């Protein structure tokens, strides 16, 4: 046995409807009729916080869910419809104390100015627990909801169109980040003698000019508690890996095995170095879909039962795991050895697999010394070991 000390893992859970399996809503525990209520989301996040998880992400989209990426499928046998993820996160923030809240934002059709202040405000209402997960939309039918551009039908994921959307997303995150820094921390002075509420020399125009948009600044919202809320993104190949390396604090990746994990981490680290960020902490998390039960057969049976209800086997971009908490802990540690610092678990059935994570997997990892036994920081950056960054516009002492 190796005596190498175990390095603690970070754990996040990805919340999406009643779970990631398309038939998850048919399970007794699923509560599909509650999906459009605050209470449903409050209960899920409370369960994740009970498990001391670093954060939850909230999936989102600008169109109805579909079993095909590029178009609607017209199906009526799966969950359709969702609430805005940023607003769900904000609604839950006052009900939680420690867990990070990371909604998905779509860069393709929205305004970076709005999203910057929205996530800054999420950071205020959660006192330092906000982040975002940036995503593009290459779906022609979602572009038609906005009517400002036409996207061609999607043929391949590495087409020039998609690559361009990722470049736009990189600019978008750049604007969001600059706006967060557009107020220095001590800009509000309330100087009664001179009548000045702010020191305007500590507010900054960001003067961003890019191929897709220009944004002047400064933000209307002061610098949020964390300075820079967490930025995260999911990637499956070079173009999104580059976005992860250039602009994020946490990248989610989908290795099927330890070899792939090693290769992906190496590629991201190379891109990170090329982007001039070699010295910065950038987490790479593995994404996994999980079916968790007390024995592997039960988990596999459950998967088979759901597949039968769905009418087809469930496949995913991420590896699908079915087994016990101890077996999952083994897999996570095996993958972590290749350079992943944490995992974002996608519960197949939220009502079943989220409690299995918080009450089964977490104690198992704790027994192995591989997960926290109490929240050790007040902010999401703090939980992830990320320092509160200096403001890019603040004059540094000579």
């Amino acid at each position, binding site marked *: 046995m190796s005596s190498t000390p175990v390095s603690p893992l970070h754990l996040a859970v990805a919340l999406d409807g009643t779970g990631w399996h398309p038939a998850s809503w048919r399970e007794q525990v699923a509560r599909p009729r509650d999906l459009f209520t605050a209470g449903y989301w409050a209960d899920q996040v409370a369960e994740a916080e009970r498990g001391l998880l670093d954060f939850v992400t909230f999936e989102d989209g600008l169109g109805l869910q579909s079993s095909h990426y590029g178009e609607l499928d017209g199906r009526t046998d799966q969950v359709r419809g969702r609430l805005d993820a940023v607003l769900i996160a904000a609604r839950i923030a006052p009900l939680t104390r420690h867990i990070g809240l990371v909604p998905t934002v779509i860069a393709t059709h929205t305004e970076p100015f709005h999203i910057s202040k929205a996530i800054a405000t999420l950071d205020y209402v959660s006192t330092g627990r906000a982040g975002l997960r940036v995503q593009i939309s290459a779906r022609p039918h979602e572009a038609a909801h906005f009517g400002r551009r036409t996207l061609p039908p999607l043929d391949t994921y590495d087409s020039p169109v998609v690559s361009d959307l990722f470049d736009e997303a990189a600019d978008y995150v750049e604007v969001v980040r600059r706006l967060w820094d557009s107020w220095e921390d001590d800009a509000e002075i309330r100087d009664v003698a001179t009548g000045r509420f702010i020191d305007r020399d500590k507010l900054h125009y960001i003067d961003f000019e890019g191929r897709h948009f220009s944004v*002047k600044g400064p933000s209307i919202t002061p610098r949020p508690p964390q300075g820079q809320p967490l930025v995260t993104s999911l990637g499956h190949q070079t173009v999104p890996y580059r976005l992860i390396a250039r602009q994020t604090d946490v990248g989610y990746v989908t290795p099927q095995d330890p070899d792939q994990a090693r290769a992906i981490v190496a590629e991201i680290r190379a891109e990170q170095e090329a982007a001039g960020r070699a010295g910065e902490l950038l987490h790479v998390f593995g994404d996994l879909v999980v079916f968790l039960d007390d024995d592997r057969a039960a988990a596999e049976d459950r998967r088979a039962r759901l597949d039968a209800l769905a009418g087809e086997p469930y496949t995913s971009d991420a590896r699908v795991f079915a087994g016990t908490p101890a077996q999952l802990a083994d897999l996570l540690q095996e993958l972590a050895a290749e350079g992943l610092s944490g995992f974002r678990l996608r519960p197949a059935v939220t009502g079943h697999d989220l409690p299995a994570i918080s009450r089964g997997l977490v104690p198992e990892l704790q027994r192995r010394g591989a997960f926290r036994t109490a929240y050790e920081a007040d902010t999401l950056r703090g939980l992830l070991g990320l320092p509160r960054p200096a403001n890019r516009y603040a004059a540094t002492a000579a």
Partner: protein
Amino acid sequence: MSKPLKQIHLAAHFPGVNNTTVWSDPQAGSHIEFSSFVHFAQTAERAKFDFLFLAEGLRLREQGGKIYDLDVVGRPDTFTVLAALAAVTDHLGLTGTINSTFNEPYEVARQFASLDHLSGGRSAWNVVTSWDAFTGENFRRGGFLPQDERYSRAKEFLATTQELFDSWRGDEIVADQATGVFLRDAKAGAFVHQGQHFDIQGQFNVPRSPQGRPVIFQAGDSDEGREFAASSADAIFSRYAALEEGQAFYTDVKNRLAKYGRRHDQLLILPAASFALGDTDAEAEELAREVRRQQVSGATAIKHLEFVWNRDLSSYDPEGPLPDIDPDVSENHISKGRAQVRMYRDPLATAREWRELAAANNWSIRDLVINTGNRQTFVGSPQTVAKTINEYVQADASDGFILVPHITPGGLDVFADKVVPLLQEQGVFRTDYEGPTLRDHLGLAHPDEAPEQRVAS
């Protein structure tokens, strides 16, 4: 035959980024920390107010080419803070000012429908439009739209969001776990809108919310704005809180309703109103004077004079006389991002009038600015203020008021504790909420309910 007593509607405007808000007072707290919003909202809910109101501005104001630093600067994102406030209140309506210019109908409809779900039917949208190139510099949708197209775009924007809200009827989600039918209708949310400003189609992805649509507020004062409100709004956030001008505005707007087939009770008139309360009327007057001096420092007085003069007046002494030089009547260039400036439509006449006032009263620049603006709407003991508010509402100067305290976040407390109980004793203000939604508080029918049903019940 005497008219039945009208019930008063009351709302709370979170103190804004102008000089009404006194940040220099030792009691003034944070304008950005969530705890201030919680305090303010919970006070309003304790007092059974109809709703909380948030204003919005999408570019920091500038004067003379520099960011304006004398007032509170900085505020949160409207949707995000309202969603968070839904977690710490149970009944209070949540009204957000959202610009129709720098947004898209699909996104705004998603956000309001989501807020309505997450608050259990308490959302309202104050629709504003401000197509100025200055604010536009913060947006990819930035740019200039001629004045006469602003309302046509705003109207089409609102109509488009209504089509999106109505694209779900409310009975589509079956979620039958046994049969596996989640949606009754594969075309749920289907919409097509082809117009001058928007050409969009697809399927909206937020099911129908508890209120059907958010309550719609309108704030513009022009003839077009009044027509827009009469045709499409549920309430007006007006600026006419004084008795006679309030009555004139009220009559004017309510009389426009008939041509749209609407009744007087389907559009509420709710002016913004400030207040100063004391144990006696004399004490309140004294407090009101003190607050006005806090609101208008010498530096603030010079800046306000610049709104009219449209010139750099920084060399003038605020304790001295008004400038002899006349206003620059060319296009405004001194102040940016401020709607107030457009109020002075004839600066030469205003300057003449102000010089005469200053001469007659021996006023300095600061005295003039204190005395011509910022007079509190209601000044007096709690008895006086309660009586006046009730008189104004019964005399159809308004249907209630949106109160703007000058202290964040505690400025509403004294009104909640001292004035509201008196209004409740007079039987003109609720002692408890009668329903869960903002439409319930405002007496507005659900969009799916025929208006006649509400009258008959």
